[in-house]
């Protein structure tokens, strides 16, 4: 094995690095396993349990893709990536896809040569304060000390927000979310700012969550979603439409409980096309007819995944808000399965 690695290095050292195998689906099938880049640990989105089994909102996307492409939601190798290593891991082919609460931005999409495949969570930067401060709006935060993670877009958003509103603040730079919790609880800062989902998760861990409030202002747009490399449109389609299948399933009322029933055929052609009893959408993707059925059965539809990992019944307790179906006043919307 060592020998082949070394010879391979020698022969291919001169080749351009961009020649990552074009047919990712074939690679994944040959490997029998999907390499999915996730966060090294983010509450509700990706975390290993005591047995080392990963679960979470982002993890569920990986599992659905594995179920669709390989037929087994557990056939995923999770590669924990940090904020620094995630893009290289994807670009170099170490992972087949990235589902790591990554904000879809212009430069990441265009300059870094990735394809974002939709949005599985609409986030935005918010503020958390102690209730006894008596502040009800972020516009009253003039002169506050703010705990802020350095080197992130939140830092820039914060500066913009205070500048636009003609206020001043004193930053308390911190490195990780865990450190921020300690600093905020110790009173080192009046305000903690990060993505609203992170704030909710953080607040849920406090011994006295009722004494802390998240202010209504959301000062940035953070659409989070899965992404793949440029250059393999078939693979991009598979991941994109797997995510869309989860979303569409919620819209049409397909759940993990009734999917077996519905897969026998319904009088709704859209559901039939989704579940493969009508048309040949699976073949167009290079998969079999039941790809979407398996993806939905992996962890339920979008709404079920949301409720199980970060919804109001969990300790994190996020409301659907922007992440409700478009029919419910949210932004979650799948193009038609036709």
């Amino acid at each position, binding site marked *: *094995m*060592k*020998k082949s*690695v*070394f*010879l*391979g*290095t020698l*022969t*291919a*050292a001169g*080749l351009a*690095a961009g*020649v*990552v*195998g074009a047919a990712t689906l074939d*690679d994944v099938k040959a490997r029998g396993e999907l390499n999915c880049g996730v*966060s*090294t*640990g*983010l*509450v*509700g989105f*990706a*975390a*290993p*349990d*005591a*047995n*080392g089994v990963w679960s979470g909102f982002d993890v569920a996307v990986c599992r659905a893709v594995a179920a669709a492409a390989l037929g087994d939601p557990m056939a995923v*190798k999770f*590669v*924990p*990536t*940090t904020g*620094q*290593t995630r893009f*290289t*891991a994807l670009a*170099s*082919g*170490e992972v087949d896809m990235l589902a790591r609460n990554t904000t879809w931005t212009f430069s990441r999409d265009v300059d870094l040569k990735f394809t974002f495949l939709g949005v599985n969570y609409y986030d935005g930067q918010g503020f958390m304060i102690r209730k006894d401060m008596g502040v009800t709006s972020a516009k009253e935060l003039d002169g506050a000390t703010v705990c802020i993670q350095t080197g992130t877009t939140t830092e820039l958003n914060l500066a913009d927000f205070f500048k636009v509103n003609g206020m001043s603040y004193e930053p308390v730079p911190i490195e*990780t979310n*865990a450190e921020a*919790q*300690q600093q905020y609880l110790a009173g080192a800062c009046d305000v903690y700012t990060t993505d609203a989902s992170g704030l909710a*998760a*953080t607040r*849920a*861990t*406090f*011994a006295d969550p009722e004494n802390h409030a998240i202010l209504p202002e959301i000062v940035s747009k953070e659409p989070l979603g899965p992404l793949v490399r440029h250059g393999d449109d078939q693979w991009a389609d598979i991941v994109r439409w797997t995510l869309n299948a989860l979303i569409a399933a919620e819209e049409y009322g397909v759940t993990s409980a009734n999917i077996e029933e519905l897969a026998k055929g319904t009088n709704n052609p859209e559901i039939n096309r989704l579940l493969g009893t009508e048309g040949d959408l699976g073949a167009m993707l290079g998969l079999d007819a039941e790809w979407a059925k398996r993806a939905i059965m992996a962890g339920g539809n979008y709404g079920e995944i949301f409720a199980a990992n970060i919804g109001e019944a*969990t*300790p*994190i307790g996020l409301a659907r808000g922007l992440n409700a179906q478009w029919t419910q006043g949210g932004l979650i919307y799948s193009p038609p399965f036709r």
Partner: protein
Amino acid sequence: MAQEYSYVRTEMLPEQEPPSNAVGALVWVRENLFSGPLNTILTLASLAAVWWILSHLSGWFLNSVWQAGSLAECREILDGATGACFAVITDRWEQLLYGFYPSDAYWRPNLALLLMLVALAPVLFPGVPRKLFWFSAIYPALAFWLLWGGSIWPPLVVLAAFPLGFIAYRLVEPINGILATLAALAAPILWWFLLAGPVGGVLAGILPGTLEPVASDLFGGFMLSIIIGVTGIALSLPLGILLALGRQSDLIFLKTICVGFIEFIRGVPLITLLFTASLLLNYFLPPGTNFDIILRVVIMVTFFAAAYMAEVIRGGLAALPRGQYEAADALGLDYWKAQRLIILPQALKISIPGIVNTFIGLFKDTTLVVFIGLLDPIGLSNAIRATTEWNGVYWELFVFIGLCFFIFCFGMSRYSMYLERRLKTDHR
């Protein structure tokens, strides 16, 4: 004959207890803690500091909860009192020690650790039978096989290159010294790239000797720290010695390479090397090749430690009086014999504190792999904190990790003091 005088004693008086005002705890306290105004003030201040720390921490430790399913349950049990939630350790200690290693195979890293102690014994202690060195020599292959599984032959065959190099050296030595050194380098390389694969295949065909393979991404926790740390320590010392000797060499080419290597590696932070290992190499390697990440990290950590080690040993070499070198020459010893018998034993003895210092630093530096997404104890503490059950647990995890690291590092430091005492030959 000695005359008998009534006023001269003929027998010794029995020993008596010292006067009561010169012994006892009270006297010790007075002499050591309250011997003067300054000492008294310092003692009182220290006592106050100790009291202050204890009064703040004791409640936290004494109230600690060891059995609970989540932080919320811990808080329910504590019911408002301050207390540690060590239940997270009870729940996840296996993960902190072994990472995601399959739990039915925990005996493998355990056995590897136990055998490591056996393999280290002849290196560390003089009283152990010398024959155990043979075991130490094959231990790397054995440990690799136990930890990663698969067939036992590939690691053994890779290891076989070293005796081959030695044999090649011995065969060519009568002809020419420099040629022999070249042969000792060439033989292993030829072996690895031409013969090792087929020979391993044939041997595996005769006797499989396979264990269930375990992928590198399942490695984590202290197991990962120890693997990286111990391999780095074991490889960096010989490499460091060679670099230090090379730096002192008269061969300008060799010297330039060694100086360049040492200065380059010392000039960049370890984290840069780790990022290189994890990110940059991916671009150089052909797509699809999976050059094991742990192997990459071990190589970088070894290089880093070897560069520091070389300078520590160079300090030891420089401290030797010139007479020692001249005496070795006068005895007619060749270069390697002079180094092995006269120079290095003394230089290494002088360098022991520095060497152990580098070892301890290296072991603690293994936590830096968290930045490239490997789940060492610190990385796992983040992952554990990311579950909804344990989100918010902070100090308990770090107390546990810190304690484990302290045990290892303190052990190393104690051993180095033992070694210094044992090797002490001067009469200071």
